[in-house]
C-alpha cells in the first residue's frame, strides 16, 4: 500500500508544514507525522535536507522533497488520481504560482517582522505595506475565484492552501500588535474567503487553534528576550 511509506517531518505550528498537511488531507493520503522541535531532530534534517536544513520535509519511500510549494505540487503530481490541487488551465496555474511566490517572497515575511518589531515607526510602515498587499490579494481572489467560493474555484486549491495556511499567524499578529489587517470593509472578498476557509472541516482538522499559536508566540517572545536564537 503506497500510503504507508509517506512521512512528513515538521512542526505543528509551522504554516509551511500545515500546507503539506492540507495537501495530503485533500488527497486522503495516510502518513506518519513526525512533529518535533526541529532543533531536536538535527540528524534527520541533515540527512533529508542538507541544503537548507529546514522543515517541512516530505519523505516518500525514503526520497525527500523539500520546500513547501514544491511539496504541494509534488503531492498533486504524484497522486494524480485524487482531487486536483493546481488549477487545470495552464494560465490559471501560472497565476496561482505567481501569487504563491508573491505571498512567500514579498508579503508573508512582513507579518513576522511586524509581530517582532517594537518600534512604532517601523510598525506603521509595515502595516501600510501589508494592507497594500492585501488589496492586491483581494484583486487576485476576484480574478482567480471567478465568482466561486475559493481561489481554486468550487474546492480548495493551491492558492487557498498557500494563503490559508498563514491566516493563523496573521490573526496572532493582529492580536499582538492590536491592529486589524484583514478588514472586511477594505477586502470583503478575502475576508469572507478567510472565514469560509477556516470553517472547512478538513482545514479545521489540520490548522492549529489561534489560542495555541498565541501561547506559543508568548513562549517564543520570552525566549528571544532572554537572548535565545542567537
Amino acid at each position: 500500500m503506497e500510503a504507508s511509506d509517506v512521512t512528513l517531518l515538521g512542526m505543528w505550528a509551522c504554516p509551511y508544514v500545515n500546507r503539506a498537511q492540507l495537501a495530503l488531507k485533500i488527497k486522503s493520503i495516510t502518513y506518519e507525522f513526525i512533529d518535533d522541535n526541529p532543533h531536536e531532530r538535527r540528524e534527520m534534517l541533515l540527512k533529508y535536507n542538507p541544503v537548507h536544513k529546514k522543515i517541512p520535509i516530505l519523505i516518500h519511500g525514503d526520497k525527500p522533497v523539500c520546500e513547501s510549494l514544491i511539496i504541494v505540487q509534488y503531492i498533486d503530481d504524484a497522486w494524480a488520481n485524487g482531487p486536483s490541487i493546481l488549477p487545470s488551465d495552464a494560465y490559471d496555474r501560472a497565476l496561482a504560482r505567481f501569487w504563491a511566490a508573491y505571498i512567500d517572497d514579498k508579503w508573508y515575511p512582513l507579518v513576522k517582522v511586524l509581530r517582532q518589531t517594537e518600534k512604532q515607526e517601523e510598525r506603521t510602515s509595515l502595516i501600510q505595506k501589508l494592507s497594500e498587499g492585501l488589496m492586491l490579494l483581494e484583486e487576485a481572489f476576484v480574478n482567480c475565484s471567478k465568482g466561486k467560493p475559493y481561489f481554486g474555484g468550487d474546492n480548495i486549491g493551491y492558492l487557498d492552501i498557500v494563503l490559508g495556511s498563514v491566516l493563523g499567524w496573521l490573526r496572532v499578529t493582529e492580536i499582538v500588535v492590536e491592529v486589524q489587517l484583514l478588514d472586511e470593509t477594505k477586502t470583503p472578498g478575502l475576508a469572507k474567503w478567510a472565514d469560509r476557509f477556516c470553517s472547512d472541516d478538513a482545514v479545521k482538522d489540520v490548522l492549529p487553534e489561534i489560542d495555541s499559536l498565541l501561547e506559543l508566540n508568548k513562549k517564543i517572545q520570552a525566549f528571544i528576550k532572554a537572548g535565545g536564537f542567537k
Partner: protein
Amino acid sequence: MADELVLLDVHVSMFGMRVRIALAEKGIKYEYREENLANKSTLLLETNPVHKKIPVLIHNGKPICESLIIVQYIDEVWKDKSPLLPSDPYQRAQARFWADFVDKKVFDAGRKIWRTKGEELEAAKKELIDALELLEGELGDKPYFNGDTFGFLDLAFITFYSWFHTYETCGNFSIEKHCPKLIKWAKRCMERESVSKSLADPITVYEFVLMLKKKYGH
C-alpha cells in the same frame, strides 16, 4: 488563429534568457521588445504592476510573469515538442528545488560580488563558490542536470554562465578552477542553438555591469 506572443525583456538578464531559450526549444515565434529599466514602458508597468520587472511574456494579450513560471507555462501549453520538465513527479520536484536554489543562492551571491568590496566581496565569493560546488555535486557525471537530455534545470542555470565572466573579473577568481565539471556542462549546453542564440555575450554583460557600477557608484 495564430498565437500572438510578445516578450518584454532585457538582453543581459539571465532571467529573460531563460524564456528565450524555452521559446527557441519549442520553435515558437514571438516579438521581442527590449526594455530600458531606467525608463520602463507603459506596457511593462501595465502587465507587471506588482513587481514592474522583466521578463513578461504576453500570450494573446494575457501576461505571465516570473521567469520560471513563464518557462513552466510554455512547457505546459506547447507540450508536444521538446519537453523541458521531467515527466516523473519526483524528478520534477528535484528540478524545481534546484532551480529555486539557483534563484536564491547563485543570483544573490553573484549580485553581491559586483556590488561590494573588501570583506563583503570575499564573503560573497565564498557563498557563490559553495553554491556552485553544490550544483556541481547535483550534476554528478550526467551530461545534463536533466540526465541524458537538456531540460528545465539546465535551462534555469545555464543563463548564469553568461554572467560568470563578470563574477570572475569583479571577484578576481576562476570558477573553472573550483567547478571544472560545471564549465564542461556549460560548454555542452552552448552547443545547442537555442542556448547559444539566447545567451548574451559575456563581454556585453560585463560592459553593462561596468556601466551600472559607474552609475550607482559601486
